[in-house]
């Protein structure tokens, strides 16, 4: 029996299940939002869907993501299973619980809030400033992905792994498609985008293989410097 199961057997609470479900749904919704955003940025124009419909879907899915994130965060804090404060929701890397892995999620949440807030006042902000902040979405999504992989209770489940893989594939494919459609401008940005889209899945696989998918991750995740896992931390790890 692994540690997660032991912990759950000790104190399963509806709140904790809501946290996990909310986080997973939020990741799927965020992925869909990002993919749609990339699609409209690349001037994706299928015959049967109008562009304003894609834009509206992009916006509505982002708000739905926010709703599920609120559920995810509120239930995580309300639950007594782990000790979290309201500050942990907005201040990255301040939590005592899994400082690094939770912090990534907090950072992603902050970035998402910045993107949503600036989008709400886009007309007053002007395109340049709005777009500068909107680029943060490309940082928000991988942070959220690694937050989920790093601290998700369900990371090891085959179905969850499949979902993580599908989300990654969707965004990577969208980025590649976007780069393929891009004009000759912004050469450096395009090269970096291509490299990032190539490196990210490899990083994720390497991380999963060395971290959450190996025994004792629940203990090791609490330490900040666990990637790659040190032999000492490995020995401290739970039963294999």
């Amino acid at each position: 029996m692994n540690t997660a199961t032991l912990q759950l057997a000790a104190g399963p609470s509806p709140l904790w299940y809501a946290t996990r479900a909310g986080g997973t749904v939020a990741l799927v919704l965020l992925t869909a939002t990002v993919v749609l955003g990339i699609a409209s940025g690349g001037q994706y124009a299928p015959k049967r869907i109008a562009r304003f419909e894609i834009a509206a879907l992009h916006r509505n899915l982002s708000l739905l993501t926010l709703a599920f994130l609120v559920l995810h965060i509120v239930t995580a804090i309300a639950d007594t299973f782990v000790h979290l404060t309201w500050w942990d929701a907005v201040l990255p890397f301040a939590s005592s619980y899994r400082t690094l892995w939770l912090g990534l999620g907090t950072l992603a949440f902050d970035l998402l809030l910045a993107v949503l807030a600036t989008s709400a006042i886009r007309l007053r902000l002007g395109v340049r400033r709005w777009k500068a902040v909107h680029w943060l979405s490309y940082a928000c999504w991988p942070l959220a992905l690694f937050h989920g992989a790093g601290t998700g209770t369900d990371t090891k489940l085959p179905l969850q792994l499949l979902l993580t893989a599908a989300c990654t594939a969707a965004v990577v494919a969208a980025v590649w498609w976007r780069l393929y459609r891009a004009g000759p401008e912004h050469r450096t940005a395009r090269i970096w985008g291509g490299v990032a889209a190539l490196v990210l899945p490899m990083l994720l696989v390497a991380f999963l293989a060395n971290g959450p998918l190996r025994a004792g991750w629940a203990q090791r995740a609490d330490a900040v410097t666990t990637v790659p896992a040190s032999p000492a931390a490995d020995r401290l790890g739970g039963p294999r």
Partner: protein
Amino acid sequence: MSAAKRLSIDRIACAGRGVCAELFPERVDLDEWGYPVIPDPTVPEHLLGHARRAVAGCPVLALRLDPAPPER
């Protein structure tokens, strides 16, 4: 005084994505390359809602709604 407004396009910013024509076909047509044409820029009050939606929907904010110049 009429509350009518005037629709204009920043042709340099416009990326020809045609969202404006989808949202506000009453005033915006598209030319054969997908760039907007506005035969009649005045927007009467009852169309203002659609006009504002088109302005907000333009991906590059190239569409503007200004107070109409005083009629002579």
